[in-house]
């Protein structure tokens, strides 16, 4: 069962991607990203008492805060239906009667949806990047590209979680509920719990353990990956600021993100009966 035919993955992936292009999902999400990003780029420095296209670092910091809510939500909505939807509509049996393994089906779905989300991210934030281009130096360009790339990784992590939810759930209603729960947990609840523990323990809570716990949340990893800026902007990054520089190696953080992509997919394959 573990012989993989890339062509089968490609057939599934390109169908998923084409579907999202045809029903204008990609363009709709790209417009949402552009609109939000433009608003943030324009009003992002209001805290400093100004409006208008200002500091690129401030803009990126604000975009990070936006993306951390928006992309996981969009990815979960995009992916929760992937398998359970086919099962509930009744098309899964026919699909699985084809010369395709379950691994190929899962990977095809995941990669096709990832391509759709990545396209929307690149187009949406890329357009804003072009608008900011006049005031961007090479360094800032590098940061902005890094931001877009990590946003895509973040989307893939939550797509992977969505596919896992989709395989495990018995029907679409449960799957959507579970997807929302995943979003709440990683985006809202997790940091609150950590903060609560930190406060309750009077700050004595293991200095070594704390950053490792942050690594267990892909949303936090995304935040940490995007700290390029100076001290005065760190207020934008919340808990991530307590992260020690020694662990801030982008390769380490990147591979943590990859782990977060692989793990849910592995569980999905294991539970896909």
């Amino acid at each position, binding site marked *: 069962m573990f012989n993989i035919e890339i062509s089968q993955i490609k057939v599934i992936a390109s169908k998923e991607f084409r579907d999202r292009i045809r029903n204008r999902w990609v363009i709709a999400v790209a417009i949402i990203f552009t609109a939000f990003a433009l608003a943030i780029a324009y009003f992002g420095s209001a805290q400093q008492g100004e409006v208008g296209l200002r500091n690129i670092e401030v803009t990126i910091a604000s975009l990070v805060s936006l993306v951390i809510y928006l992309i996981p939500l969009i990815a979960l909505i995009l992916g929760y239906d992937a398998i359970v939807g086919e099962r509930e509509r009744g098309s899964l049996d026919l699909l699985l*009667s084809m*010369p395709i393994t379950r691994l190929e089906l899962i990977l095809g779905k995941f990669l096709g949806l990832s391509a759709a989300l990545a396209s929307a991210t690149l187009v949406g934030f890329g357009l804003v990047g072009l608008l900011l281009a006049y005031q961007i130096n090479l360094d800032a360009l590098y940061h902005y590209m890094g931001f877009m790339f990590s946003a895509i990784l973040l989307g893939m992590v939550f797509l992977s979680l969505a596919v896992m939810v989709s395989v495990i759930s018995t029907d679409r209603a449960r799957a959507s509920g579970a997807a929302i729960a995943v979003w709440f947990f990683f985006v809202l609840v997790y940091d609150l719990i950590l903060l609560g523990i930190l406060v309750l323990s009077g700050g004595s809570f293991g200095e070594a353990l704390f950053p490792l716990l942050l690594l267990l949340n892909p949303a936090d990893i995304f935040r940490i990956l995007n700290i390029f800026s100076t001290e005065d902007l760190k207020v934008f990054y919340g808990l991530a600021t307590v992260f020690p520089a020694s662990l801030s190696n982008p390769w380490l953080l990147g591979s943590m993100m990859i782990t977060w992509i692989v793990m849910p997919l592995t569980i999905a394959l294991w539970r896909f009966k």
Partner: protein
Amino acid sequence: MKNNVIEVKNVIKHYGDVLAVDGVTFTVVKGETLGLIGHNGAGKSTLFKMMLGLIPLTAGEISINGAPVHGSAFRELRRSIGYLPENVVFYDNLTGLETLKFFASLKSCNQNKCLSLLEKVGLTHAANRRVDGYSKGMRQRLGFAQALLGNPRILFLDEPTTGLDPEAIREFYLILNELNTQGVTVVITSHILSEIQERVQRLAVLKSGKLHALGTVQELRESVNLPLIIKVRHHCSQSILQSLLQEIALESIAVSETAVELSCHRTHKMEVLHKLSTLGALIEDVIVREPSLEDVFLGYAG
């Protein structure tokens, strides 16, 4: 036997506490059409899914062309199998032609054949229409075209004629007949028994997960031993007829002025006919009706 295409041996399937399939054994030989009948919940679809390797067996084994469906040869096997699920569902946003092309690419077969397949099932006019505008019958035709992708050697058809009009059903069986002559092996389920009995070589009757009978239509009829119906048109008096037939053990008899309808066991058939023949020209006509498959089916599965 090397001619055995499908071998099902002592297959058992549990869903939790529910015993869905209980020790089923049969074989299907090359070029044969086997009809699978039984009530809803008798285990037909479960058996189908196990033969296709979609769900695991609790016990027993199933092989196709001598190999297990889930084994290393599964890709080769799957390419040689066509499957039409019950109530087939496609993707509403694709056209008929796109649907076929999608499955053709999964089966790694020539996409240029898709149009001619659509023509074969009479869907050329709707090739570029989205499937969400298709009627039930059109979806079923598209499902059949899909099952024929890549010239399969084995066809699994689950209630293939549901939603088809009589003309389409006739065309469907014409295609099936043509495939049979080319040596394609077919397993088919249907709840329209009068339709299936003329079209299959053998029937398997499932009830509560058990195989209750297996054989040709004639073998099944004989084994259940249902009474034959004999209809007689006559010119003689009712009393003569009644006294003539009273020595024979009949199941029932209804006599009127010009006709008699009686039912008797197969073993008494010749005796009845012999007695009737002694009346000579007083008998105008005799019709012997075999029990229909519906009767056989109800005898077993009712």
